[in-house]
């Protein structure tokens, strides 16, 4: 990591990770930061604090990451961490339908309580647990940790509120065709639909394989307005964000063709 890139000063970005317990928030951060951070992170009490730089074409973004505790009772402490945050990563587990509900609640809360210009990314983690689809370069490393598949199928059905009927092959319900795929409880389409609606960046990622992790943070970095100190007028910022969000959402849809700014990749 060269940070002596002449006059280019790193933009500091406060980023907060939110999501239900055990969806893999800490693992995502570890994956993103592990290159220059010691492995031995402390367990999350309230929130763990880490930093990582991310290079774009024209600038460096320095993420100050607050990895919050997922346990429900720490919820009331979360405002302390998302206060003033420029970005938020809301994580759910694609093999657990209820975690998306929780993620939606977080998004709602952020949109109401946090900084109005906050860039929110919705991330479905544990992509490695479901078999490959949609061209993501994830090795089909299925770890069958299924516990109650029957129930889960049911749950996911009730939870799918969006009436965007997902195209049959890629989705969840049919537990028949592919054994590993049956672990998936949240279809990509469903989450994507929601992300578009709520104007969020959207990714499915795997902290385990690293798929989409750096892309995620790069995309967030791109969506952060350039100069740190400027606090643009709310309307302007709002618009900027919306654009960003739209773009992000689009990129989420056709994940197949990879991100443009990939060369700027972090780490």
């Amino acid at each position: 990591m060269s940070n002596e890139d002449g006059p280019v000063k790193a933009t500091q970005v406060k980023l907060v990770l939110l999501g239900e317990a055990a969806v893999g928030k800490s693992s995502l951060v570890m994956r993103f930061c592990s290159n220059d951070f010691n492995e031995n992170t402390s367990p999350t009490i309230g929130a763990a604090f880490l930093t990582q730089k991310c290079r774009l074409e024209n600038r460096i973004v320095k993420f100050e990451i607050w990895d919050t505790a997922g346990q429900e009772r720490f919820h009331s402490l979360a405002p302390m961490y998302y206060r003033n945050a420029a970005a938020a990563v809301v994580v759910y587990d694609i093999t657990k339908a209820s975690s998306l509900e929780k993620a939606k609640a977080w998004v709602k809360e952020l949109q109401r309580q946090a900084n109005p210009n906050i860039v929110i990314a919705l991330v479905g983690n544990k992509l490695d647990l479901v078999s490959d689809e949609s061209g993501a370069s994830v090795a089909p490393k299925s770890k069958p940790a299924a516990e109650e598949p029957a129930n889960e199928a049911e749950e996911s059905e009730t939870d799918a509120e969006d009436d965007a009927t997902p195209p049959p092959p890629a989705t969840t319900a049919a537990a028949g065709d592919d054994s590993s795929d049956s672990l998936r409880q949240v279809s990509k389409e469903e989450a994507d639909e929601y992300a578009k609606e709520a104007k969020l960046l959207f990714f499915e990622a795997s902290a385990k394989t690293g798929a989409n992790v750096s892309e995620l943070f790069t995309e967030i970095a791109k969506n952060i307005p350039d100069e740190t100190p400027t606090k643009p007028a709310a309307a302007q910022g709002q618009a900027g964000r919306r654009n960003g969000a739209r773009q992000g959402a689009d990129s989420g849809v056709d994940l197949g063709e990879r991100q443009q700014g990939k060369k700027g990749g972090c780490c």
Partner: protein
Amino acid sequence: MSLPMHLRNYKEKSKDEQTRDFFNVPVWDAVPSPNEEPVTTKPRGVKDGSSSGGLQGMDINAVLSVEGKEEVYAGRLSLLPPFLCFISLDRRSCRCTLPLYTIRRVERLNSRAGVFALSLATWHGMRIILQLTSLLPTAEHFSILLRDALKSQLTSMKSLKPFLPSLYSEYLLTTSSSSAQQQNPDHLLLGTELGEKSGTAAGNDGEGDLRGPGGDGKGSYQRGLGETFGFPGDARKMRERSKMKLWKEYFMIHGRNFTLLRYPPFQRLLQVGLPSRLRGELWEVMSGSIYLRFANPQTYSLLLSNNKGKSSQSTDEIEKDLNRSLPEYKAYQTEEGLARLRRVLVAYSFRNPELGYCQALNIVVAGLLIYMSEDQAFWLLEVLCDRILPGYYSPSMEGTLLDQRVFEALVQRCLPMIKDHFASVDVQLSVASLPWFLSLYINSMPLIFAFRIVDCVLAMGVKVLFQIGLAVLKINGEALLEVTDDGMFISLMRDYFSTIGDSAHPNHPDPRVRAITNFQELLVVAFREFNIITDDTIQAERRRLRAIISDEIEKFSKRAAVRNLKKVGSFDKDEIGSIYDYYFTAVCSPDGGPANGGSGSSSPKFGDQFDQPRLQVDAQGRVETRIDLKTFRVFLSEIATWAREETVTTNAFIQRTERRLADHELIDRLFYSWDTQAQGTLSLQDVVIGLDRVMHAGLMESIEWFFNLHDKDKDGFLTKDEVIQLSESLLFVFRNEPGDIYLAAVSKFILNAYEFGDANSPHPISSPDGVPRGDQESASHVRERSDSTSGPHNLPYLNLATFRMVVLADELLEGFFGHDLAASFQLDKTVDEDYHQAHQKPEGILGGLMNLVVTNENKSRLNRLADGFGAALGKHAEWRKPSLAKTLPSSSSQLSELGTRESLLTPAQQEQRRNRSVSAASQASARSTSSSVGTPESRSLADVEAKYREEQDLVRQAQEAVMHRPNFAIDAIGDSDGEEEEEEGEGGRGADDAVMDEVEAFLKAHGDDDGGLKGEQKKQAEDLLKAEPMGGGVSANNKPGRPSGEGGLIDL
């Protein structure tokens, strides 16, 4: 959704509880008598601390000295059965908490006249002399209480012997054959050469190697993981050996474990860090958790065996965190270490299901288990969660939030520059300080130092956390003023803690100064500069800030709860907010408790039911509060006018409204119809959906849901019985409406229902003759008739369409279903305000007086009194507030029109009515009603005036009476005794004070550092050591009740 009811029901601790806390004495409930069945789930709802199993406690001034020790301390002796506690006047030099079951023998000493002295022989052979410096009768009273308390502990004493081998100190002292080389422990801080000396001497001690593994198989004491996997830190560097030696010496003179006295050297030994092997035991002794372990020998293993194989949300969460709990310590890389950690956390989550498991407990317990056995750690965990860090780990974490706020306030007070700077750059202290408090610094700094802080916290209480925190900030003050954001702050703190073992003055020429580490400096700053932070400071700040925190938590959980509702129907945000408020008010109300419905305060009641369905975990892992039928009644009574009985009483002085819950099947029906999942409880969401359906229903929907409410089998037909039930429901709603129009309407309804029901019946058998019945017949007649003619009553009979028709045929019922029913549910607070006004701040002549008398009991008494006056004056009136309030006329003159249907108000009038204060309306009708009770209106003026005077006199008398006796409720019984005693006590106290003054003057004159006594009094104490016990029966004649022969001697 968290649990705001804790916060609402919070009660400040009583003085007695505070004293118990100070001495680490458990509340009586936590100490079951040995024959009791062991209770594994935590007893909840602390009883009055004073009810110490029927044994009385008492405080007395005393002077304490110990055989073999020079110092003598004046202080306060407290008998808190089953403990005897002492604290020196300066509150730090000398202190002890002696369980009475460790006292073998108590004797009154034969000494100079006027000195009342007791000699206590403890289990460990220590002899403690206590001079009771109060007046003789007081001292004698104390010794009687002490004797009674001692007697009650005989059974516990038997368990002491088998318990003691679990303690390392016993092993340490029994194995050491070598006699104590009398080293003066005060030399401790210069201990380098001492360490070397004892290093050679300790060779024959049996536990020579204190560094690594060892000691297995030797002794049966309970041990932590450290005995197997090695304790953190370098034993040689930490001078374990010399510390151990000093402790051993300390134990010989000052007692050990249960009988440990804290003398000044204790504090010094503590602050240099406890030796690893002794640490676990001293932790439980200092925190008092040892008393719980002693009193509940089976609980831990029972908890594990009873809950074997069970899983819960807590156990899942524990599982996830096991591998992140001090992973750097070797034991937690092994299955054994993890298994211990798992067992303790799981056992506690079942012990205290309400708390369950909170992240950070894994760190704390992982720390404890290095030095303690599972059983020891388990009880210490209980003491931590209950007493030392109250509310830190609870589901709403209110204690944590509160103490963070307290910490900020203290920083503001002590280090205003830092606080101001942080405010200007918008950095919150809590981002760094939260984990300090939650994990007792175990997670923040290297373990060996963190545990030394834990030592101090367990010995001196939570204030240490604040003192250390402040010292950290102070030491880093300059750098902190450069901080511009959270990230810098965190990094700075992290850097500081990672170098805390380094020299604080690395470049100093003097090697001794260079040897001072950052950590030592931290302790010095914490305990020297911030010793102004006392327990009282923290209590006061907590008291000040608690309301704010509770309010914030409530708002937060309300916001979250409201946000998390999936459906809100047609309610707006404010209405949802009101529903939430009513919902939780009901949960918190004393009547809202679960079914045990007895007396007692509210808190223990709902505690009992915590593991019942009232709290559930929803799909997203949130703890959800649900209400049962009983609580629902309370809730509904707040919202629906007909679900409560309101009695409005006016007498000459005040008007008041009394509310009671109404009880009718209709309410139950509503409950079960809203309980769509048939869980037997309702969530906030259920209630919102239910209310939405009821309150936003139009005429047709109202008719429909009311129909469905009574259609039990949901077949679309009401049976005849159900028709009757439905009518009864209507009558219930109308029960307090004035006039008989409603009754008439309902009778008509029944008639029509039967008539049309028969006509449309799908089961023609029900009406064989098919003859329509006459209108004139009364409802009861119809019932009889149909009884005899229509066959079984449980056959489908009336369908919705017919029901609708019948309802619409009646103007009154149409109006009722059209809007009155929906309008009888009121979310607006105006009603509530009226209620409060009438209830809490009654005005009028007696109103002010009323406010003086706060308790409900007194209030009702006073109310009765006032009613009495009112009745005497002929001004007493009582009536039930109508539920629909619609027929309340704007003036009493309209009362006469009630007989006609025309009295129905138009919607516009309805609006008017709503706006009009309800109390005004009721007053109007009060006037009318009371006139019927018979106030003679035609009295002459003079008459009235005379009456008024009389009235005022009475009021004045009443007022005086109340003012004279503020403790209005405590009456007659035992009162006179009390007074006498008080007098006696006062005399005693006067004398005591004099004695104490003398002692204080003495102390001042001698400028004693440690608060010990010197000179004559000390000599006196020394004399006492040699004094012979008094012969039997010396004081027997004083107290006739006492069996002679025993005298002042309590011989166990």
